[in-house]
C-alpha cells in the first residue's frame, strides 16, 4: 500500500484505524469522508429527521473513534463497529426521549400520480421519497433500523445482525415486516 498524493485512499478501513492510532490525521480524515454522509443519513432516519440531534450523535460517534480507538477490534469489520456505536447511541436517545415525529412535510397519500413526461416524473419521485420517509417514521425502531441499514445503507444481513445484536433470521423477519408495511403505505403510488 502506497501513501499516494491523495493520502490514504488505497487503505482499508482497518488500516486507517491503525494509522489513526499512531496519530495520522489524514487517516482519520479519510475515514470521515467515507462514512460521514451515510452515517448522517442513517441517524436522520433513526432520529425522526431531527438534524440537530443527528449532527450531535454523528459528532459523538467520530469523537469516540478519535479518543478511544483502542476499543476497535482489528479482527472485526470496521463498518459494523461504526454502525454499532451509532445504533447504541440511538437506543440511548430513544430511552431519553419520547417518540417524536420529524419535521418532514408529508404528501397526501390519496393523490395518485402518473405521467409520461420527465418533469412530472421528477415530481412523482420527489413525492414518493417524502412519503417513504414519512412511512419510515411510523415503523418501530427495530424495523426501521433494519430497513434503513439494508435498503438505504446497503449492509448485508450478516452485518445488520452483528450491529443489532440479533441472529440473521430475526433480521430477515424484521426486514420482511418493514417492507410489507411500507409497501402498504405507499400502495397508492403507481410505481413507474
Amino acid at each position, binding site marked *: 500500500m*502506497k501513501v499516494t498524493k491523495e493520502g490514504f485512499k488505497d487503505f482499508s478501513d482497518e488500516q486507517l484505524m491503525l494509522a489513526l492510532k499512531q496519530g495520522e490525521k489524514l487517516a482519520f*480524515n479519510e475515514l470521515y469522508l467515507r462514512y460521514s454522509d451515510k452515517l*448522517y443519513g442513517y441517524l436522520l432516519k433513526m432520529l425522526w429527521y431531527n438534524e440537530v440531534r443527528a449532527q450531535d450523535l454523528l459528532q459523538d460517534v467520530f469523537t469516540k473513534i478519535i479518543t478511544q480507538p483502542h476499543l476497535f477490534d482489528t479482527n472485526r469489520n470496521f463498518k459494523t463497529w461504526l454502525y454499532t456505536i451509532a445504533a447504541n447511541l440511538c437506543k440511548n436517545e430513544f430511552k431519553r426521549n419520547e417518540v417524536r415525529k420529524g419535521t418532514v412535510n408529508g404528501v397526501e397519500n390519496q393523490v395518485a400520480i402518473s405521467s409520461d413526461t420527465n418533469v412530472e416524473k421528477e415530481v412523482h419521485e420527489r413525492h414518493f421519497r417524502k412519503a417513504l420517509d414519512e412511512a419510515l417514521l411510523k415503523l418501530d425502531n427495530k424495523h426501521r433500523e433494519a430497513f434503513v441499514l439494508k435498503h438505504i445503507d446497503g449492509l448485508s444481513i450478516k452485518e445488520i445482525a452483528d450491529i443489532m445484536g440479533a441472529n440473521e433470521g430475526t433480521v430477515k423477519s424484521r426486514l*420482511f415486516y418493514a417492507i410489507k408495511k411500507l409497501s402498504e403505505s405507499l*400502495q397508492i403510488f403507481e*410505481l413507474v
Partner: protein
Amino acid sequence: MDEFEIIKQKNRYDELSASEKQALMDLCDNEQSFAQIKSLMQHAEGALPVSTPAHVHEQLLAVYDTTYPVQVKRIPKSIPLYGYVVAAAAVVLLVLLIYPITQNGSNPQVAKKGNENKPALPQAKDTTDEPINRQEEKPHKSNPQPLIAEVETPSTIHQEDIENIPPYNDDLEKEPKPVAASISPELMEDNEVSKTETAAMDVKQEMLTSKYIAVEVADRKDKSKSAKSKKWVTPSMLKNIRPVF
C-alpha cells in the same frame, strides 16, 4: 442468495422459479405485490445521499488535534521496488570501496608486493670508456635551497684514474703512512732531501686525489639512491679536499 437479491434480479413475478416463489411467499404472492416491493427497494437504494454539514468536520478535526497534539511524520506503507534496488546498489558500492582499503591496511605483504611492482629506478649506465662528468647537484624540489654547499671539483675525471684508486676507508682520513715505506732504498740514497720531499708530495697528492675520487664515486652512488638517503659530505672531508688545477 437472500430473498431481496432474488427480487432485484427478476423483472416479473412469473420469472420466479417454484423454490423462489416459496422463499418470497411472506413478502409477495402475486405480480402486483412483487412489482411494488421491487420498486420500493429501488427507490430506497437510489435515495440521494445526505451531505454532512461542514462545521461538524471542523469540530472533529479540533478534537483530533487536542487528542493527538504531536502528529507523527508520515511513513510510507511500502517502499517502491526501485528503492530496494537503489539501496542494494549503494551497499555494494560501499563494500567495494571499503574492502580494498581494509585489505591493504591489514596485510603488509600486499603493500610490499605493491612496492615491488613499482617500476625500478633507473640504474647508472656502464660508461667505462667515457669520461665521467660531474653532474651538478640539483636542488630538491621540496628544498629550494641546497642543504650543502657545492663542492668545487675537477670538471672531468678519467676512468683510468678511478681504477687505480685504492678502496676508500676511514684510515685515509688519518695521518698517512710514512712515505719511506713505499720508496725504494736506492732513490733514498741518491736524492735524500729533494727526491724524498718530491716523492712525499707525490704520494700525498695521489692520496688526496684518490680520496677526492672516492668521495666523488661515493657521491655518485648516493645520488642514485633516494634523496633522503643521500650521503652528505661532512665538513671534515671538505677540509681535506684541495682544488687541483
